[in-house]
C-alpha cells in the first residue's frame, strides 16, 4: 500500500474525537453516578463491561494532565483517581451509535467474552493481577470500533470481503485498509499513553509469539479470544475460530487438562452472562 495513504489513514484514526458506545451500559452508569450512595466498585464493574467507556476512562487517567501517564491499567483505580465529577463529564460527553447494527452489539458481547476468558486464563496460569488481563481482553478489538467510526466507508468493504472470501476479519482489514485492528490498537495505545502491558495485549493478541515485553499478556488475550469464539459468545466480525497458537499455551504452561478446566469454568460463566444484552 502506498505509504502516504497509510499515513493518512493513521492520522484519521488517531484524530478520533467522539467515540460512541451502545446505550445500555452508558445509561446505567449515568444513573449510578447520579446517586450519592453508589460506590466506585459498583460503577467500575459496570464500566468494565463496555469497551468504549473503559477506553475513555483509561485514556483520561493516563493523560499527562494527571501526572502519571502509562501507569494505570485498572478501571477501579482509574475511577478512584479521576473521581465521580470527571466521570460524570465523560458520561455526558459520550454519544451513542446512531445506527445500532447487530454487528456492533455482537462486537460488544465478544469483547466482554474475551475479557472474561482472558482473566480466567490468567488466573489458571497463576498470573498476578488478573483484572489487568480482563482489561486487555475487553479492549482487544477496540481498533475495529475506531476504524468503523473513523473510516466508515471501508467498513462495508471489509464485511463484504469477510463474507465473499471467507476471511478472518483481520485478514479482510489488511486487504481493504492495508493494516489490521492490531496495528490500530498499537497506534491508539501509544497515542493515549496506555500502560505498556495493556498495549502488548491489544497489539499482539493475533501474534503472541512475537510479543517482546509482556508475552504473558499477549498469550492470555490470544487464548481468551480463541475461547470466546469457541463458545460463540458475541460476534468478532467473522464466524471463524482463530488459530490457537500452541506457543501461547506453552508460554503460560497450560496443559490440556488446564485448558479443559478453563473451558468448563467458562461455560458456566458464559451461561451466567448469557441473558445480559447490549441491545
Amino acid at each position, binding site marked *: 500500500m502506498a505509504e502516504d495513504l497509510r499515513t493518512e489513514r493513521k492520522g484519521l484514526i488517531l484524530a478520533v474525537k467522539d467515540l460512541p458506545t451502545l446505550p445500555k451500559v452508558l445509561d446505567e452508569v449515568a444513573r449510578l453516578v447520579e446517586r*450519592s*450512595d453508589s*460506590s*466506585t*466498585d*459498583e460503577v467500575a464493574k459496570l464500566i468494565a463491561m463496555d469497551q468504549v467507556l473503559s477506553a475513555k476512562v483509561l485514556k483520561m487517567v493516563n493523560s499527562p494532565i*494527571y*501526572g*502519571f501517564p502509562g*501507569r*494505570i*491499567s*485498572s478501571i*477501579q*483505580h482509574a475511577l*478512584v*483517581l*479521576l*473521581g*465521580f*465529577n470527571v466521570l460524570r463529564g465523560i458520561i455526558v460527553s459520550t454519544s451513542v451509535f446512531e445506527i445500532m447494527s447487530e454487528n456492533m452489539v455482537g462486537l460488544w458481547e465478544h469483547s466482554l467474552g474475551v475479557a472474561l476468558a482472558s482473566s480466567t486464563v490468567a488466573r489458571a496460569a497463576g498470573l*498476578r493481577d488478573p483484572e489487568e488481563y480482563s482489561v486487555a481482553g475487553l479492549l482487544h478489538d477496540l481498533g475495529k470500533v475506531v476504524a468503523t467510526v473513523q473510516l466508515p466507508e471501508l467498513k462495508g468493504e471489509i464485511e463484504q470481503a469477510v463474507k465473499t472470501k471467507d476471511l478472518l476479519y483481520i485478514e479482510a482489514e489488511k486487504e481493504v485498509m492495508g493494516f489490521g485492528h492490531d496495528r490500530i490498537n498499537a497506534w491508539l495505545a501509544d497515542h493515549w499513553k496506555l*500502560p505498556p*502491558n495493556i498495549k502488548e495485549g491489544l497489539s499482539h493478541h493475533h501474534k503472541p509469539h512475537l510479543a517482546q515485553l509482556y508475552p504473558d499478556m499477549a498469550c492470555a488475550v490470544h487464548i481468551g479470544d480463541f475461547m470466546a469464539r469457541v463458545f460463540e459468545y458475541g460476534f468478532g466480525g467473522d464466524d471463524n475460530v482463530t488459530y490457537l497458537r500452541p506457543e501461547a499455551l506453552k508460554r503460560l504452561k497450560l496443559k490440556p487438562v488446564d485448558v479443559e478446566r478453563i473451558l468448563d469454568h467458562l461455560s458456566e460463566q458464559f451461561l451466567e452472562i448469557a441473558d445480559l444484552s447490549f441491545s
Partner: protein
Amino acid sequence: MSRETDTRAAGYGFTRPQLVTLLTPDAEFAALMQGMWPESVMQVSHFTRGRRAIETLFNDPPDLLIVDGELADMPGLDVVSLVKSENVYRQLPVIYVISQEELESGRDWLAAEIDDFLARPLRPAEIRARVLLTLARASRSFDANPLTRLPGNTSIIHRIQELIDRREDFALAYADLDHFKSFNDKYGFSRGDEVLMMTARVIVNTIRSLPGIRSFVGHVGGDDFVFIVPPEVVETACQRLVATFDNIVPSFYDPEDRERGNIQSTDREGRLRTFPLMAISLAVVFNRDGSLKHYGEASQIAMSLKKKAKENPTSCYVLDQRRGDAPPPPSDLPG
C-alpha cells in the same frame, strides 16, 4: 495580621481588610480608589512617586500593587520589575495603568511581569471589577503547590486557625509516605512526582467520596499532605485511603520490583539495602469543644503521633486519644 475573621471584609470573600498600594500622580484616581470600598474591606495607601514607595513595599508588602505607567520620578514598570525580580515579593499581584495610546501602540506583555491592566479613561465599574478579580486570582494561586496545585502551607495554617478560632469540631490528618525517599533515589524525581500526583488525587477523591461534609485538602510539600474532615468520618476516610493507596501504589514500580514486593537501593553509606513498597502513614488530631487553642498545638501533637504511625512499616493511621477524648464511633466500611 488579625486572627479574627472580619465579618465586613468577609462579605467580599476576604478574611481581613486588603492592603492596596497605589502609585499614581493622578489625585482624582487616588480619591476614586479610596472612596470605592470601606476601610474594613480595602485600605488604600497612595504614593505619587515611585522611589518613596519602594521601601514601604519591601518592608510591608501589600496584597495588591497598582502602578501608573507615568510616575514623576521613574517609569512605573521599573518599580514593577524591582518588586517582581525578588522571589519573596513575586507573588504580589500588580495592576498596571496605561493610556489608550500605550495600549494601541502595543507593548511586550510577556516581558512585563504584570498581572492585569487598566486603560484610561478609567471607569469606576471596571476598576472595581479588575481589583477584585486580581485579588481573588492571587489568593487562589498564591501558595498552591506547584506540582499538585493543592493549597500550600499558608492556606493550611490559615484554615486550621480559622476553625480553631470558630471553635468548630474537626479532625486534622497529616499524611506522609514511608520509603518515598528510597523510591526517589532508585527511580528519580520525576517518578517520585508521579507518586505525589497519585497520592494527591487519591486523598482528594477519597475525601470527596464522603457525602455531604465540609472538607479541606492541602499539600505541605514533598510527601506531606493534610486533610480536614468532621471527626465522625475521619476513621472511614483513613481506612479508605490506606486501602486505596496500597492497591494503587504497586503500579508505580517496575514489573520486577512489583513482583518482588520491594526495591533495592543504596543508602547514605553506599550500602545496598532492601526497602519495602511505599506505604501511607496518617496521624489524626482532633479539635473537640475547643480543645485546641492554636495551630502549633495541632502540629505538635501530630508530629508525635506520626512517630507512632511510622513504627508500623505498612500503611496505617493513628488517632489522637489524649485528654480523655472519646474515640469516634467505629464506622463500618461501606462497599
